């Protein structure tokens, strides 16, 4: 059986103190805890600091294009449903250029785990406003403070029918690992939005800031994770400054099971050669 060490690959070159280190560690631990073999897992990333995670994770990987991790991850899963597939990106990557894919993967309920390293800033391009930047955030591209309404990924995911919506924080490895594990086990699309501080370019949303503001619903026995509207209410009450498994429902089948035309054996195992009988049937309609 694989150990944690088997899920380690390249040494990360993120800035010292970057929140993404914890995300990577949690992902590696979650994979090992679940008992995955590295060859049976694929990590697909987009572009940016977060995009580098596919190289650091010891699974198979795909470092794709900006905002496009989800369609690649979708196809990986649908081509080989035996694989465990994680899509990973940042707030700019996933909620900016890639937000369309996000919503559509939710609608389809593709059985992948989507990890978003949300630092409220564009890091790799040296600090511009991101889709989750709070109103009033001052950046190089919004010197007088951003006036755009930030994207609300948790609420969006719940409203779009996502069956597993969680939020973690790079200051809490243990909880984050559990949330990712839960997402990987969930049959269907799971979102884990992670507050992952950018220590270089974001001087507002820091570890200290989150330590002071975050409410952990996992520690609240009265919180009902199965109630969609209660979840949204709680998220809004906390101004999104909360962690834990916020909504969980196992009602919906994942795409490859809900769709009766979807093959029951992995597509990659299908015979690519036709026989005479199948060929005959195929061309009969053109006679």
């Amino acid at each position: 059986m694989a150990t944690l060490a088997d899920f380690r690959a390249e040494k990360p070159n993120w800035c010292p103190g970057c929140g993404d280190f914890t995300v990577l560690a949690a992902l590696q631990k979650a994979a090992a805890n679940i008992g995955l073999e590295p060859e049976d897992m694929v990590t697909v990333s987009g572009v940016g600091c977060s995009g580098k995670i596919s190289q650091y994770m010891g699974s198979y990987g795909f470092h794709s294009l900006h905002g496009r991790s989800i369609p690649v991850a979708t196809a990986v899963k649908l081509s080989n449903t035996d694989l465990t597939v994680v899509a990973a990106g940042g707030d700019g990557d996933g909620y900016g250029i890639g937000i369309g894919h996000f919503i559509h993967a939710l609608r389809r309920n593709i059985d992948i785990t989507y990890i978003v390293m949300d630092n409220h800033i564009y890091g790799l391009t040296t600090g511009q406003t991101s889709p989750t930047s709070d109103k009033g955030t001052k950046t190089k591209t919004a010197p007088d403070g951003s006036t755009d309404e930030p994207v609300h990924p948790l609420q969006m995911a719940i409203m779009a029918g996502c069956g597993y919506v969680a939020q973690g924080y790079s200051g809490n490895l243990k909880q984050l690992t559990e949330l990712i594990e839960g997402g990987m086990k969930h049959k269907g699309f799971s979102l884990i939005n992670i507050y992952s501080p950018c220590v270089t370019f974001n001087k507002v949303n820091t570890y200290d800031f989150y330590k002071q503001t975050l409410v952990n619903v996992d520690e609240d026995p009265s919180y009902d994770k199965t109630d969609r509207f209660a979840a949204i209410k709680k998220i809004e009450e906390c101004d999104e400054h909360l962690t834990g498994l916020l909504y969980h429902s196992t009602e919906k089948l994942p795409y490859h099971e809900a769709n009766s035309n979807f093959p029951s054996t992995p597509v990659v195992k299908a015979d690519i050669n036709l026989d005479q009988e199948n060929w005959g049937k195929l061309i009969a309609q053109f006679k």
Partner: protein
Amino acid sequence: MSKDLGWKVGGAQGEGIESTGDIFALSLFRLGYYVSTYRHFMSLIKGGHTNGKVRVTTENKGHHGDDLHILLAFDQETINFNFHELVDGGFLIYDTSIKNVEVPENDKVNIVPVPLTDIAKEAGSTIMKNMVSIGATAAIIGLTPDDFRSVLTDRFGSKGDDVVESNIQAMQKGYDYYKANFSNHIELPARPALRPERLFISGNEATSIGAIAGGARFLSQYPITPATEVMYQMVKNFPKLGGAVVQAEDEIAAVMMAIGANYTGARALTATSGPGFSLMMEALGLSGISETPLVIIDVMRAGPSTGLPTKTEQSDLYTIMYGSHGEIPRIVLTPRNVEEVFYFTKEAFNLAEKYQCPVIVATDLFMGMNKWTVESLDFDKLQNNRGNFASQEYLDSLEKGEYKRFDVTAENGISVRTIPGMKNGRFVAMGNESDEVGVEMEEAELRVKQMDKRAKKLVGFDDIVGASYVGAENAELLLVDFGSTSGIQREVYEALVEEGVSVGHLSLARVLPFPTADVAPYINAAKKILVTELNSTGQLAQQLKQFVGGHEKFESFLKYSGDPLLVREVLAKAKDVAASLKKEVTL
């Protein structure tokens, strides 16, 4: 006996024009004829003028022909737009229920007013006016309603025998009406022997079954005219073969999914047309640098932007050859007839895996949305070959971390590929430049090595013959084209040969790697070169000049109205060029 028969039905969109054309065309095909069709339609659901042309011939022709012998008009617009195409001795059959009908004066055309709607009403329903009109046609060309029975049975049989019979009856009434009121006839071309292996198939359908025969088991696509039909075949056939279709949210998702599926080890494709292809540009580069196989079908239509969604053009040539930033190896195939559409699409999957790069198969609306007779298609002709795949035994023999997905020492630049699930074969497919293992790097020397590795792949590529030539040795006039215009050009060539012109016909079947060696001898030998293409800037001619030279010899026949070529218009230009050659000789 006529050489061929051109038949056309026209009316308002939504009036059953397409099905009337289909029934006529398929019936003639089943009688043994070679049939080429052309659908004229607009980007509308209902209303607007639409027509369908069917050309019936004794030999295989690559296009629907210039001439029209019989025109069936359900409305005044059909007469207005198409009457002028009728040859002397041709027939106009029109519905007498067209209000204030106006027929141009032409005493060389047989005018056949038939109360199509009234007869159909009498037969049970006005919907059957198309059957009445086919009946009248049958009477003109010496067929009987029974010749159409098998197609009607296939089409309406599921609704009950009485539905088939009432359609036959409507046809019979149209037939009888003509016999009772008119007497002129037109003879069908000589009927070829029936050959059961022949198919009547559109370019898009040939693309689909070519992909299926080539082992494609994953399609991600976003609907777009004229490529949408590719998806229909997959939706119908993939479940039985263990394959999957995803209707993507946009073309970017479609191409990224196709890349993801190929990376995972499925043979996957996406199909689109120009606007969608433009959206896929960034991903094309990703396939190239990450060395992930990818097959894209571009069914070209008239651009730029959304341009003319329902009209044909060959103006994506530069885009399919050079689109996407940076430099990657790619293969671009331009099939010239439906058989080639099938075989090239099938082979595209072998090429994508063999060379681990994108393969684009470019057809167009003219080829894709129209139906053609093909002699036969052989699903077994080109064996599926998966290229340089690692075996598990090979991976087991390596030390951990020793496997190099992007090994620069690989022969011909093609390194060993693994797929998820294989032990010890872990790698990261990279959109950024990487080292041999697949770790991002920017080091100058390694960068150059990786660029050179990828560029090496297609040196000496000869898997698909680049061009074919027919004609005299050292012909003075050379006709050149690519893709779907080749069939029309062949007729132009034949007409010139008959007139004693020293002419050759060179047609390109692929544009990347550019088939310089295949075309250069003919370009160099010719005195004048006429390049015919469906775009306004002469894109193919520019490529020939760039790769071969001979700038001063080139002339172009360019068409970018959205309509397909006519033989007579290209022929007129070719004759001009031939005449200029003669002048040069006498001077």
